[in-house]
């Protein structure tokens, strides 16, 4: 049963505070600003996070011609200056490596990798240096690095700009991965990521960026490794992450009209992963559907299924279902791209099938 309190209190202090509606992108931007104000060792790096690098406007201020992809960093250079808002050449491996080096020596870099797909260009630095340094050097050092990028289909960017392969990142020991699902959680997770002493990757699905939601005025952090309930229910557990949490909620609301009572778990963190919330929920509903836009093999959907098939097996009354993208790259054509991505209708069909309805 969903109570008002539950949805109003998604995690921690929740919505019982002063705040306002704002877009995910504005919440993101606001959080960066707060963290830059809070800690002088925090600085930003990325391609065109300002734009027009090295040039100035009529007032002698550094140009802010671009403000980062999807305006994530808009306005920051004019307030914090080019030393803290550092435009980079197109050298993802090089500048991510430099960011790691700066993190190893006392700074707290925040790196914009633009489209999630470009992570692969810098993959070795991410895996071999950022994720492994602390271990290889036996705790002598830490890597307080935050990375962020935009994932997912839906904007017609085709195969090389639409990836959601956060499962590959969640696979990597030494790295943390978070997937906010609204304006509220991106604020809490991004600030937690920046304050965290480990490398954290913040994935933002493009389809979330222009959605609005309630955001507290005061800044706050969400504990990494905690999922949340977006809806309480008893018939089946729908697990979402990033934008698929929105889809799960949507599906649950429609199913509620037909008398089907879904519980919706929003993972928020992929690494660390909240195993308890999964087990808690499935032990009540006895049924699990995991929804993930990523392609299916060795995905987060697979991981959630595997955890539950091990830890909550005795509670399960039905097969564990995964609703994911197909094992294909993302196509360009709008209808094909739409078909690639899970939607609430697919979740509804899967739910009914699972309940033998």
């Amino acid at each position, binding site marked *: 049963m969903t109570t008002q309190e539950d949805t109003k209190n998604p995690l921690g202090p929740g919505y019982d505070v002063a705040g306002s509606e704002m877009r995910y992108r504005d919440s993101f931007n606001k959080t960066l600003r707060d963290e830059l104000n809070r800690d002088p060792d925090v600085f930003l790096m990325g*391609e*065109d996070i300002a*734009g*027009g*690098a*090295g*040039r100035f406007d009529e007032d002698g201020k550094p*140009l802010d*011609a*671009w403000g980062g992809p999807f305006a994530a960093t808009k306005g920051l250079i004019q307030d914090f200056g080019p030393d803290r808002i550092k*435009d980079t*050449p*197109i*050298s993802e*491996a*090089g500048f991510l490596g430099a960011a790691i080096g700066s993190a190893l020596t006392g700074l707290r870099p925040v790196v914009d990798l633009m489209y999630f*797909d*470009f992570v692969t*260009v810098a993959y070795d630095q991410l895996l071999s240096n950022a994720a492994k340094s602390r271990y290889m050097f036996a705790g002598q050092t830490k890597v307080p690095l935050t990375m962020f990028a935009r994932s997912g289909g839906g*904007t*017609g*960017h*085709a*195969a*090389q*700009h639409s990836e959601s392969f956060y499962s590959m990142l969640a696979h990597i020991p030494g790295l943390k991965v978070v997937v906010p699902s609204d304006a509220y959680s991106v604020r809490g997770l991004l600030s937690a990521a920046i304050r965290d002493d480990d490398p954290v990757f913040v994935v933002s699905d493009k389809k979330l960026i222009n959605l609005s939601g309630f955001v507290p005025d005061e800044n706050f952090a969400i504990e990494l490794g905690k999922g949340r309930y977006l809806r309480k229910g008893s018939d089946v557990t729908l697990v979402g992450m990033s934008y698929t949490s929105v889809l799960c909620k949507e599906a649950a609301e429609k199913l509620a009209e037909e008398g089907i009572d879904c519980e919706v778990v929003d993972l928020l963190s992929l690494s660390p992963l909240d195993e308890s919330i999964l087990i808690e929920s499935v032990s009540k509903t006895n049924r699990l559907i995991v929804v993930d836009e990523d392609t*299916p*093999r060795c995905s987060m959907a697979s991981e959630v299924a595997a955890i539950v098939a091990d830890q909550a097996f005795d509670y399960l009354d039905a097969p564990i*279902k*995964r*609703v*994911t993208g*197909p*094992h*294909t*790259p993302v*196509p*360009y*054509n*709008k*209808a*094909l791209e739409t*078909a*690639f991505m899970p939607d609430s209708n*697919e979740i509804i*069909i*899967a739910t009914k099938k699972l309940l033998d309805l």
Partner: protein
Amino acid sequence: MDISKEKLVWLYETMYRIRRFEETMLEQTFKGNAMGVTHSSDGQEAGPTGVCAHLTEKDWIGSTHRGHGHCIAKELDTKKMMAEIMGRATGHCKGKGGSMHIADFSKGMLGANAIVGASIPLAVGAALTAKYKGLENESIGVAFFGDGATSQGILHESMNLATVWKLPVLFVCENNHYAEATPVEYAVSILDIADRASSYSMPGVVVDGMDVFAVYDAAGEAVKRARNGDGPTLLELKTYRYHGHFHADVPENYRTKEEESDWKERDSIETFQDRVIKANQLTDKELKAIRDEIDNEMIEAVDFALNSPMPDMDELYKDVYVNYPNSVLAPQQRD
């Protein structure tokens, strides 16, 4: 310059076709008919044109997110290109690739590529194939890339490999002075990118990228070297894109009107017209006839694209592999 009338016509046609294609394509993008972002190369026509004038279908080119000009210079079909941008089944890639992935392997066009720098080694690989088969005199590889791409390590690796293996490759940097909104003087720590050729003991040539004859000459030399087995060359074409980085970009946010008009005064197509008319190589009337034909071609291309069917829905699951036995391509939920 010794250049046949036929070639002159080809140069003009090609430049004008690129220009009109980009204008038309932008128009269609703003009308909502393209399915994603588009990157216009107008202003930069002389580069692809002057280089590809020396190539045949057996030569291979690699391209970028700003690839329409390369496609046209490699004689891809503007109908199929427009259809691809509109996501249609009749497009070069059945609507599955889009503006940033137009390819035509039958024409020696290895594909536009949306990862900055990623297509460069592909052209090196094509040259490797040619040399492996003893065909470097009739098949070379050409890598087109922007000034921004020069900051990607893979360019460095590719140039070194091409010289180590002495492969028939042209590295063609279209320096349009911006990578998105980043001025080249910020991102590149030397004045002329062409100078980096000396790191690989290959020739590096700065070329006026607004002058198709200059490009034609420099590329001719480089192609000759490659076909002769003398290895790669780096060409830097100084050029300019007239529009923003992508269709919705507002370049006034980072560059001046004066800079724009300075470059436009050196417009490659107008300069070409003035010159061939003055030299009595082509008449005003001949040029006009060419333009009319291409203007018409663009109308037809849009028509063709708009009236083409969308791809079948099962295209989603096709072409992932040559063969793959597994149901995972279409997950159970969708069965």
